[in-house]
């Protein structure tokens, strides 16, 4: 299983699109969004610029997890998963490794945007808060990784990719990852608060202030995680059902 993990990790690191999606795009978005308009003031219990740093880091992390997860569509269609089934490696371990790698794809964005924020806008917080931030933004991608895998095990590659992007953009804009929810009308703000993307970023905002996740946020994220886990499990079972 470790050999399979290393094999897949090496493939992931060599994938140029991963760098574009999880490092280049979030950093450019960050520079643009924090470069226009006033970024003084407070938001989500931290300085606005810190909140925006975390929001855009979360945006890249969600994109990384979802795109790597839905990328399983290619492996399914190419017959690679079928080939693996004819080796002694049990299918459940294949899925476990895929899931772990998918969440790991979230980390480059958090680090790249964090460094850009530190350099460009002198975003500061205690080192322990940075560490907590990376940890929660890593673990918090679990629902998105599951959603990506559900898409990848269900849809053909040429549909999985646009479906992933549409879902991702909807979740990040409505979740307040790019624009703070304070500028939303009240009804939209309430809607935003039940989205997994908003509650995911909230993990980061709390961490930056040195707080643990809120009970409401944790419950909502757990609910989405459960839903996406069921969807991913069903999709996986359907795709591997013996004909």
């Amino acid at each position, binding site marked *: 299983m470790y050999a399979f993990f290393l*094999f897949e990790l090496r493939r992931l690191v060599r994938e140029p699109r991963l760098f574009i999606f999880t490092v280049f795009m979030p950093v450019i978005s960050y520079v643009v969004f924090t470069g226009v308009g006033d970024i003084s003031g407070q938001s989500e219990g931290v300085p606005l610029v810190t909140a925006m740093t975390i929001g855009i880091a979360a945006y890249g992390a969600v994109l990384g997890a979802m795109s790597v997860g839905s990328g399983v569509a290619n492996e399914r269609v190419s017959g690679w998963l079928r080939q693996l089934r004819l080796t002694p490696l049990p299918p459940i371990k294949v899925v476990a490794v895929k899931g772990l790698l998918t969440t790991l794809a979230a980390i480059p964005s958090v680090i790249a945007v964090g460094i850009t924020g530190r350099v460009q806008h002198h975003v500061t917080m205690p080192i322990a808060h940075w560490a907590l931030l990376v940890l929660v933004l890593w673990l918090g991608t679990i629902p998105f990784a599951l959603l990506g895998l559900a898409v990848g095990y269900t849809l053909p590659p040429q549909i999985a990719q646009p479906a992933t992007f549409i879902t991702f953009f909807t979740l990040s804009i409505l979740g307040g990852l790019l624009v703070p929810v304070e500028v939303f009308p009240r009804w939209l703000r309430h809607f935003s608060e039940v989205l997994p993307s908003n509650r995911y970023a909230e993990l980061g905002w709390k961490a930056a202030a040195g707080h643990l996740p809120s009970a409401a946020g944790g419950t909502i994220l757990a609910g989405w995680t459960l839903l996406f886990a069921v969807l991913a499990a069903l999709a996986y079972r359907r795709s591997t059902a013996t004909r």
Partner: protein
Amino acid sequence: MTPAVILDDVSKSFGAVRAVDGLNLTIEAGQTVALLGPNGAGKSTTIDIMLGLSRPERGTVRLFGVSPDRAVQGGKVGAMLQDAGFVPNATVRDLVELARALYPAPLPTSEILRTAGLTELADRRLDKLSGGEAQRARFAFALAGDPRLLVLDEPTAAMDVATRQSFWAAMRRYSATGHTVLFATHYLEEADDYADRVVMIARGRVVADGSGAQIRSLTGGRTVAFDLVGGGTVGLDRLPGVRSVAVHGDRASLRSDDSDATVAALVHSGRLFQNLEVGAAGLQEAFLTLTAAGGPAGRDASPIAAAGGDPTTASGA
């Protein structure tokens, strides 16, 4: 000794189509067996069932006495499938090392690369391989774990002639070390040249089972071939002994039960001809005869029972 493969009365349908229809097949450990049949005969479905990728509606499958899933998990099986693809961003060496790590007692890396003819391509990315090279990489992945049973579905598709020859040489070395090899093919020469035993299937049933020579002798007869020199083909089918007439360009090929009588009559007919050749009917003809006849019940398939169908070689007249 436990047979490597037992398929007992296995059936499988896709909608109204019976892909595999009461198929019986036992392969003793150490044999090299060709599964020979035209496209759509049920070869790939049979292999899928054998490997546990597809569940039969009826019948049982045993590999070395256990279920296909257990045999696969135990590292006893290596397979090279037609539709098994690779993933980008990994090299040939990465792939081989992965396979080695997954099996309990793998072959040395250098030996795998050499056997599959990939030593020079070891550091090439999988997505940069040509069709024939990718086939060799599939072969490397299948044999890396030194599996007791190696299953190859149409292994030489997409290979050029030179690659094909080196592939079969490698396969022979592998089977010579006591491994069981089953390969599916619709190349009749491959089955004849490289297998100890040829199992011919059509419409999901075994229609013939024996050595390549036995399969060829099933249909008996010889071919009488010659260039037509101006003369037409009218009357050729009425020459003594002739069962069928095929014409390719200017060359006529007669299947005859009595080639002596056919040739004598041809000479006496005053018909002009050139480049006369009399030869044993090839596996190609045997194949057409047997598969066109639809075959007898799979359960009782034997060389004798399978013989006697009408050939379908079309008359070119």
